[in-house]
């Protein structure tokens, strides 16, 4: 397409021109970075997913036992038929599916009720101590998701499973009914109480951004307060609500800890615990069928959300921050309501920790008398009569190894994730409008729809053999880092993009005009200006990785145990006190880490979530 004003050039020069243009395109930094990112995500996300699907449609070595005539490595619909059409399928697939749905909907509903009403109270009323409530609301998020489940067990265990009675039974003598001790009800409550933070953060951000004159207009028109809430406020925060919904729903769907502690002992399996069970017996094909079902559920939820909200930007609220005005007056109820809320939050956040702490000072589980008090689980020298002779937590080298692994994992994951976030943000924002950038953004979104346990499952088959230049990673610590980084890509790219959008494009252009090459522009201008985004991305990832279980439970080996997986192992072995003590160590480490990071300017959980 040469303009008529220019005489056509000879072929050779035209080819040269073409090459120059291509070279310039391919060496522009956002293109290079986007291409690198695409390769990386291809390895970290697409290939594993592909391998997972392949595993479900090929015979494995140990299928010979169940399927006569099976030849390993040959294509088959065996796993799918078995999991979806046979009697085994009813127990292994449909029942866990139903359970997962029940648990996810139940927990999401509870999380919404708590998070939503807290958000409204804090943003829209004259409640005192709003700052305290605001801080406490984020506390559950920094605790391992199964903390409440463990505490529940301490409190409500009723001894029907041959175990020791819980605190309630010990003090009242009445065994709590089975439905309260185990199964869906406690799982729902424990997960709901843990995950209300998302709803709280999303809804309060949305409420804050609504111009309250919209509501005042309704009030002037003579609508009642209740009507305004339903007809004006509620519809305006629907996008935020749905974001909270998918985030909570898919988290609970993929969660492993709670259902494992409270469901598995009574054979109440969810998809995630059933995946684990299948993996432990080596039935990878079957496990992956379940994992794919789990992914499909998660994808359906998210695409429904997008259909309803209309755009992918469902996280965005209604616009610029309007100024707050009229707050609902609670009058004489102010103090009482604040007290109730704060008490509730403390019970939910600190209560479980106290229960766990108490239980770690008991020689025998279930005996709450003072004579049973011991410090053996913390600083015991290793009495063969207690815990098969393992020394107390604080003297146990295995714990220190686990703690070191946890910290190592969290710090390196946080570092790489935050770094990738900035790179992804740069590639996506600078390439806005190009197909390459769009593709990068879409690929970066994929891990979002894959629930934690399924994502871990994906990585089992991957990297057992060398893939291209990558050595076999199975069983290594590096694999844990890779899977954690990969799972965090959606969050990091989002916070990277928002950090990058805050740096006006003129700032980089001014540097370009002044003669700075792309490396100089990145290191001297862009990186310093996005460092707050880097820190908040780092904080968020550090916290979530420290207490992450679902993602890595299938990938840890005895050598790469982290604290989170250790608590689960202790709990499964019936060593309640150790399990609980390790959780406490874990929470302490997260808090210390968070404290250290918050010394850097500007990092905050909210920013890390891209809000």
């Amino acid at each position, binding site marked *: 397409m*040469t303009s008529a004003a220019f005489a056509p050039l000879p072929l050779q020069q035209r080819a040269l*021109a073409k090459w*120059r243009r291509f070279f310039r395109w391919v060496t522009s930094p956002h293109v290079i970075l986007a291409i690198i990112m695409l390769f990386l995500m291809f390895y970290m996300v697409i290939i594993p997913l592909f391998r997972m699907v392949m595993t479900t449609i090929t015979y494995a070595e140990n299928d010979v036992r169940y399927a006569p005539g099976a030849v390993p490595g040959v294509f088959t619909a065996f796993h799918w038929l078995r999991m979806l059409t046979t009697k085994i399928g009813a127990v292994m697939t449909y029942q866990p599916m139903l359970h997962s749905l029940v648990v996810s909907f139940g927990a999401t509903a509870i999380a919404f009720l708590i998070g939503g009403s807290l958000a409204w109270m804090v943003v829209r009323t004259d409640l005192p101590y709003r700052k305290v409530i605001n801080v406490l609301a984020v506390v559950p998020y920094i605790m391992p998701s199964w903390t409440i489940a463990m505490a529940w067990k301490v409190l409500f265990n009723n001894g029907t499973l041959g175990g020791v009675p819980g605190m309630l039974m010990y003090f009242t003598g009445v065994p709590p009914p089975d439905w309260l001790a185990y199964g869906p009800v406690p799982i729902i409550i424990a997960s709901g109480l843990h995950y209300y933070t998302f709803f709280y953060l999303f809804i309060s951000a949305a409420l804050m951004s609504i111009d309250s004159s919209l509501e005042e207009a309704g009030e002037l028109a003579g609508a009642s307060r209740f009507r305004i809430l339903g007809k004006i406020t509620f519809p305006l925060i629907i996008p935020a609500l749905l974001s909270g919904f998918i985030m909570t729903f898919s988290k609970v769907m993929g969660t492993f800890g709670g259902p494992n502690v409270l469901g598995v002992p009574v054979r109440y399996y969810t998809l995630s615990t059933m995946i684990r069970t299948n993996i432990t017996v080596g039935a990878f094909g079957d496990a992956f069928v379940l994992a794919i079902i789990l992914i499909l559920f998660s994808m359906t939820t998210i695409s429904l959300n997008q259909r309803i909200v209309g755009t992918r930007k469902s996280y965005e609220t209604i616009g610029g921050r309007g100024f707050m005005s009229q707050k609902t007056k609670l009058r004489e109820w102010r103090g009482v309501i604040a007290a109730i809320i704060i008490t509730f939050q403390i019970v939910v956040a600190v209560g479980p920790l106290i229960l766990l702490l108490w239980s770690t000072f008991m020689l025998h589980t279930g005996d709450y008398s003072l004579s049973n008090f011991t410090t053996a689980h913390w600083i015991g020298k290793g009495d063969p009569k207690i815990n098969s002779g393992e020394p107390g937590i604080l003297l146990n080298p295995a714990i220190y190894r686990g703690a070191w692994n946890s910290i190592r994992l969290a710090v390196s994951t946080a570092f790489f994730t935050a770094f990738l976030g900035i790179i992804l943000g740069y590639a996506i924002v600078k390439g806005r409008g190009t197909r390459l950038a769009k593709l990068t953004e879409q690929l970066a979104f994929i891990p979002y729809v894959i629930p934690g346990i399924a994502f871990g499952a994906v990585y089992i088959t991957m990297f057992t053999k060398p893939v291209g230049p990558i050595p076999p990673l199975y069983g290594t610590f590096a694999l844990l880092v890779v899977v954690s980084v990969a799972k965090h890509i959606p969050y990091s790219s989002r916070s990277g993009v928002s950090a990058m959008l805050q740096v006006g494009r003129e700032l980089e252009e001014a540097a370009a005009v002044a003669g700075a090459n792309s490396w100089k522009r990145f290191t001297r201008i862009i990186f310093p200006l996005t460092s707050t985004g880097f820190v908040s991305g780092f904080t968020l990832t550090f916290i979530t990785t420290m207490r992450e279980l679902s993602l890595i439970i299938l990938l840890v080996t005895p050598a790469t145990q982290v604290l989170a997986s250790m608590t689960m192992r202790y709990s499964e072995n019936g060593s309640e006190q150790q399990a609980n003590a390790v959780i406490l160590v874990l929470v302490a480490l997260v808090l210390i880490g968070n404290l250290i990071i918050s010394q850097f300017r500007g990092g905050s959980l909210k920013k890390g979530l891209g809000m």
Partner: protein
Amino acid sequence: MATTITINHLTKRFGNVTAVNDVSLVIEPGSFLTLLGPSGCGKTTLLRCIAGLEDPDEGEILVGDKLVFSKQRGISLPAGNRELGMVFQNYALWPHMTVYKNITFALEIQKLSKEQMDKRVKEALAEVQMSDYQDRYPREMSGGQQQRVALARMLAYRPKVFLMDEPLSNLDARLRMDMRVELKRLHHDSGATTIYVTHDQLEALTMSTYIAVMKLGVIQQLGTPDRIYHFPQNLFVADFIGNPKVNLIDGVIKGKNKVDLGKFEIAMPTHGASGDIVVGVRPEDISISTKPVPGGVEFSAYSVLPSGAESTIIAKLGDLEITVKEIGISKIKMDEKIWLKFDPDCINLYIKETGNLVSS
């Protein structure tokens, strides 16, 4: 020393929108060219293409003898290699660097010694009267001060060409006036070829040696401020330039020396035009009188708007409305009878269908 900039058949599209449409332009060395037009006319895009911040879809750009962009030859030098300096609308000072660091950033890249850098910073800051602000951070300065520093930052690395993208639009009216003075002085002293983008016609008229009026990606007229003001090439330029706005009156040619404006006629050479035309006459080119004068047309004063140095009078005859400018505070009262007289030498004729000027 000053540099010529040559633009040949430049086109830039964004999706379906053609922001710059086959623009050709030679910018004489040492001139101060303003790209003027309403928002969305492509003036900023054209500037960014020259700067190397956008890649055009067609055409060539030469800075001096250097081919910095050629679609046909596949050449596009990075912005930093074009020896241009640019001042941005929102200053684009790097917020994490002091004034000193902002200025030396480019000098470090040019590998100047510490002493040379200090000297350049001093000179540049003195030039914009900001000598005491070396250690401030951008957020510690007012908008006007930031803009001066942005200017100093550009001056310090001595580019051959200055590019300015609406540099004054974020300043308040008073500061804008001061900065106009400074910028014009700066251009005069440095003699560097300058390309300046603005939507403010007053800014364009006061500062430029040449103005290019743009609309929908096409240059409507390129000329000196004088030409642009007195002989707008078409109705768009006529309407865009001037405050208060030019009077545009529909009419019909009546022979060689007469134009019929419906309510009255004006005797003037029609240069061979025929049919429907539009008459363009600037408010200050109409004389006004409260008594009948020979050749005067009777109007009534619909509204009188004195503003100190001058007064604007809206005269009405039936539904024909004409704006007239008078020096000083007008004595005319509203609804008073007035007589307007048009100077045939100051009237421009436009063909109604094409909107183009009938040239004399």
